[in-house]
C-alpha cells in the first residue's frame, strides 16, 4: 500500500484556511450576540494575549527546560514600551475618527518596539541568569521581574520627561487592540514559535533540554542557544504586553506582580511542558473558565491550585505531555488508517 503523504504547500494551505475559519467564527460570535458581543470580545482578546504569554513561556520552560519566573516582567516592559510609543503618535485621534486603517502602521511599529525592548531586557538578564540552572535561575528571574515592577512603581519621569507616571499608572493609551489585531498577532506569534522550533535552531534548543552535556559533545553552542531561546521568549512576552496595553487602555505596575508570572507558568505546566497545543488549550481554559464562573471567581486561585495538585498526581507531564499537534500529520494518519481498512476489506472479499 502506498502511504498517503501531504505535501508541504498543502499543509500550509490547510492550516491557513483553518486559521481564517477560526477568525470568522470568532468574529461571528462577537457580532451576532449584540450587546453581549463586546463582553465576549474582551474575553477573546484576553485569551489571545494569554495564549501568546503561555506559548512564549513554553519556549523557555518546555523546550529549553529552564524555569524562569519573571515572565510578567518582560510583559511589563513590552506593555510600557508599546504604550508610550502609541501615546506619542496621533493614533488616538485617528481611532476616534474611525480611521482604523491609518492606525495599522503605528500598531506594527509599536509591536516591533515592544518586542525589541523586551528582547533587549531579555538579553541583559539572560546572559548572566542562564549561567545558572534550576532553582537559581528561577530566583534570579523572579528578582528581575520584581525589580521591573518596583522601578515602574517608583519612577515617573526620566530626565524631566514624564514617561511611566509611577504608581498612578499610565492612562489614556489608544485602544488599538481590536479582535482582528489580536488574532493576527497571536496567529503570527504561534507561527513564529512553530517555525523556530522546526529548524536546526529548534532542534538544538530541544537537545539542550534533553541532555546538555551530550548537546555540547556534538558541538551545540549551548550558551548561544539558551540565550536565543530566552530572548525570543521575552520578545513574544513583550508583544503580548503591547496588545494588553492596547486592550486595557491604562497600565499599572501592580498588574505585573509576581502572581502574574505564576499564572502564566501554571498555564504552561497544566498544558504540558513542551507542548504548544497544551499551552494554548490551558491558556484558553484558564482564561475563559473564571469568566464563565463569574459568581465563583473569588475561588479562582483555589481552583488553580486544586487543578495543579490534581494534575501533578494524575498527569504529572501535563495535559498533553510533550505531544505537539500537527494538522498535516493527523490528516495523514487518518487517511492512511481508512485506506488500510479498505484494503483489509478487499482482501477479505477476495
Amino acid at each position: 500500500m502506498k502511504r498517503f503523504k501531504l505535501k508541504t504547500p498543502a499543509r500550509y494551505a490547510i492550516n491557513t484556511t483553518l486559521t481564517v475559519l477560526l477568525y470568522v467564527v470568532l468574529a461571528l460570535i462577537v457580532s451576532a450576540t449584540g450587546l453581549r458581543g463586546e463582553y465576549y470580545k474582551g474575553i477573546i482578546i484576553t485569551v489571545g494575549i494569554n495564549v501568546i504569554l503561555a506559548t512564549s513561556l513554553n519556549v523557555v520552560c518546555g523546550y529549553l527546560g529552564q524555569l524562569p519566573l519573571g515572565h510578567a516582567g518582560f510583559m511589563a516592559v513590552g506593555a510600557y514600551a508599546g504604550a508610550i510609543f502609541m501615546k506619542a503618535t496621533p493614533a488616538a485621534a485617528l481611532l476616534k475618527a474611525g480611521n482604523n486603517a491609518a492606525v495599522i502602521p503605528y500598531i506594527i511599529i509599536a509591536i516591533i518596539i515592544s518586542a525589541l525592548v523586551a528582547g533587549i531586557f531579555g538579553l541583559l538578564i539572560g546572559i548572566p541568569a542562564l549561567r545558572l540552572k534550576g532553582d537559581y535561575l528561577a530566583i534570579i528571574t523572579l528578582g528581575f521581574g520584581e525589580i521591573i515592577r518596583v522601578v515602574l512603581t517608583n519612577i515617573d519621569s526620566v530626565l524631566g520627561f514624564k514617561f511611566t507616571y509611577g504608581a498612578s499608572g499610565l492612562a489614556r493609551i489608544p485602544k488599538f487592540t481590536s479582535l482582528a489585531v489580536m488574532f493576527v498577532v497571536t496567529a503570527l506569534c504561534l507561527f513564529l514559535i512553530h517555525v523556530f522550533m522546526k529548524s536546526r535552531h529548534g532542534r538544538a534548543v530541544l537537545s539542550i533540554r534533553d541532555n546538555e552535556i551530550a548537546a555540547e559533545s556534538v558541538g551545540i553552542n549551548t550558551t548561544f542557544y539558551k540565550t536565543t531561546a530566552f530572548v525570543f521568549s521575552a520578545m513574544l512576552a513583550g508583544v503580548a504586553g503591547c496588545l494588553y496595553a492596547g486592550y486595557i487602555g491604562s497600565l499599572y505596575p501592580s498588574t505585573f506582580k509576581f502572581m502574574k508570572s505564576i499564572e502564566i507558568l501554571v498555564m504552561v505546566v497544566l498544558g504540558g511542558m513542551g507542548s504548544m497545543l497544551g499551552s494554548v488549550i490551558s491558556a484558553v481554559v484558564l482564561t475563559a473558565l473564571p469568566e464563565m464562573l463569574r459568581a465563583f471567581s473569588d475561588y479562582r486561585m483555589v481552583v488553580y491550585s486544586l487543578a495543579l495538585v490534581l494534575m501533578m498526581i494524575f498527569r504529572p507531564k501535563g495535559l498533553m505531555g510533550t505531544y505537539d499537534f500537527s494538522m498535516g500529520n493527523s490528516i495523514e494518519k487518518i487517511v492512511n488508517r481508512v485506506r488500510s481498512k479498505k484494503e483489509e476489506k478487499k482482501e477479505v472479499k477476495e
Partner: protein
Amino acid sequence: MSTVLKCEHLRVVFGGLAAVSDFNIEVNDNQIVGLIGPNGAGKTTVFNLLTGVYAPTSGVITLCDKDLAGMSTIARSHEGIARTFQNIRLFKDMSVIDNVMNSFNNNMTYSIAHAMLRLPKYWKEEEKARERAMNLLHVFNMERYAKETAGNLPYGSQRRLEIIRALATNPKLLLLDEPAAGMNPAETENLMETIGKIRDAYHISILLIEHDMSLVMGICEQITVLNFGEVIAQGTPEQIQKDPVVIEAYLGKRRD
C-alpha cells in the same frame, strides 16, 4: 601513517588525588586503540580530559598537530573529537532522526531569519540533512526507527544511535566509552563488526574503553592499560595478554 591524537605527560589532580598521572598515548590514522584497566583506573577521566570536560593540571593534548589546550567541549567537537557516554546520554524526548540531524548543526548555515521566513535555503539544507541522516541510519540498520522517540528504543539500538550521533559530527577521532556495556555476546559480536565497519567506511581513528576482553582483543590494534591513573602497559593485544604487570593489576599477585 600520521598521528591523529597525541597525549604527552597528561596529568590531572582532584584535591590531593592524581586521577591521571603521566598519561601518554598515540593514536594513528585509521587505527583502533583500546584503553583498558580495572575499575577506577581513570579511563573515563582520560576521555573527559580529551573532550575538555576537565582541564588537565599539566600535559599536552594534540589533535592532528593542533594543541587543544584551553578549548571547550564545543570547540573540540568542531575540531573533530566525538564521543559516546558510558551511561547513555541520548536526546531521549526527540525522534531518532532529530537526534542525528542535531549533529549536523555546525555544518548547516541557514540563520534564524532563514528558518522563520522559510526561505529556500532552509528547505534545501534541511532536505540535505534529512537525507544524510537517513543514509547514516540506513548504514546501521536503524532506518525503521527514524520517527521513533529515542528514549523508547531498545537498549542495543540506543547505544548504536549514540554512535551514529557521534559519527554525524564528522569526527577525526571517535571516543567510545564502554560501547558493549550491558550487551549480550551476540550483540557484542554485532558491535565489533559495526566498529570495524565505521573505521573502514569513514576512515577515522577510534579510541575505546571496554571491559569486554573479547571485544578489545578482537578489534584493537594497540592497547593501553591504565591502573591508578598510570599507564602500566602499552602494546599489541598479544603483548598485553602476556604482560605480567597487567595480569597482576587484574588478578593480583600470587603469594608464595
